[in-house]
């Protein structure tokens, strides 16, 4: 699947996460901002990359603004952003 337009999902409210995704040419770039970045930054990034891989995304720029979201919420928001970006799941 290909990212063909900029898209976002989620909110900046507590327990949620705001995810932005846009097309890129040279692989994946994932940037994380999180209230728990020190403890969970690596886990958040690996989860984002896993959802992108599950959806066959090889090229994209992803920005994640986390407000303490659980993993199931993070996965949902990344998947929604991917679907909104023009690709089909």
């Amino acid at each position, binding site marked *: 699947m290909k990212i063909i337009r900029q898209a976002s999902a*989620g909110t900046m409210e507590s*327990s*949620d996460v705001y995810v932005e995704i846009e097309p890129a040419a040279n692989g994946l770039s994932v940037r994380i901002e999180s209230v728990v970045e020190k403890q969970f930054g690596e886990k958040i990034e690996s989860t984002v990359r896993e959802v992108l891989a599950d959806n066959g995304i090889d090229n994209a720029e992803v920005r994640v603004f986390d407000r303490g979201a*659980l993993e*199931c919420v993070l*996965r*949902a928001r990344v998947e*929604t952003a991917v*679907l909104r970006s023009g690709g089909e799941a």
Partner: protein
Amino acid sequence: MRRSLLFLPGNNPNMLINAGYLGSDAVIFDLEDAVSPAEKDAARILVRNTMKYMELDCEKIVRINSVDTSFWQADLDTILPQCPDLILLPKVGLASDVLTVASYMEEVERKLGLEVGKVGIMPLIETALGVENAFSIASSSPRVKALFLGAEDLTADIQCKRTKEGREIEYARTRLVVAARAAGVDVYDTPFTDVNDDEGIVVDAQLAKSLGFTGKASISPRHVEVINDVFSPTLAEIEYAYDAIEAIETAKKQGKGAISLRGKMIDAPIVARAERTIAMAKALGMERSEDCE
């Protein structure tokens, strides 16, 4: 056993992640009124993940969008693989609304290799047409497990003001209870929407129980405990139920056709009610007290 059914907005992680800790017998993940059209896609994925990844020690019900929208099929495509206990189907006016959804559910279940018919449907009756067709809706499909009264939309439809006292929905309440019982399914009362009226919810829940409702919905976790209390049998009711069963068994042994208990005849309806009370008490872990023996 469902005494309390708590609505949770489908696109609000802060509420969803607490679903299992709010004390209700069932949670209703809402993909309909609580979610704006632009967020329907996000909500159904979030609700699916909540059901998939979180351990919830309560029944899971999902309110999908109504059949007159373009959302309901995608809702079912996403949600059915997680096997919710019930689908709450809004704005049901005709039995054919239920059959349309039941048919699509079967199609999805067969396509995904899921058990056909496992997930039930609870029609939400919230229009004048739905009230008048309540029995045909309740008996339309073996998937229908209960009726659910939605008073906010109903009062708008019948063009009257919604009040705390609820006189304007008396007919709908009794009509739904009778229709549901005639069809052999459960029936749930509309939420009490003033979340700050702690006395009002008690009165409203007691009224619903007295009319024959199985349980009651809530839009606030604050109302769950009250609803659970009201719809649980009291110790006096449990005591009476055991005494009634004992009395009827004694009568049978003595070859008597009828017997009285505390001045009242014990007959088949009283025995049936006593059996339901004892079954519910056992399910709730409510033992007969020593004083009751």
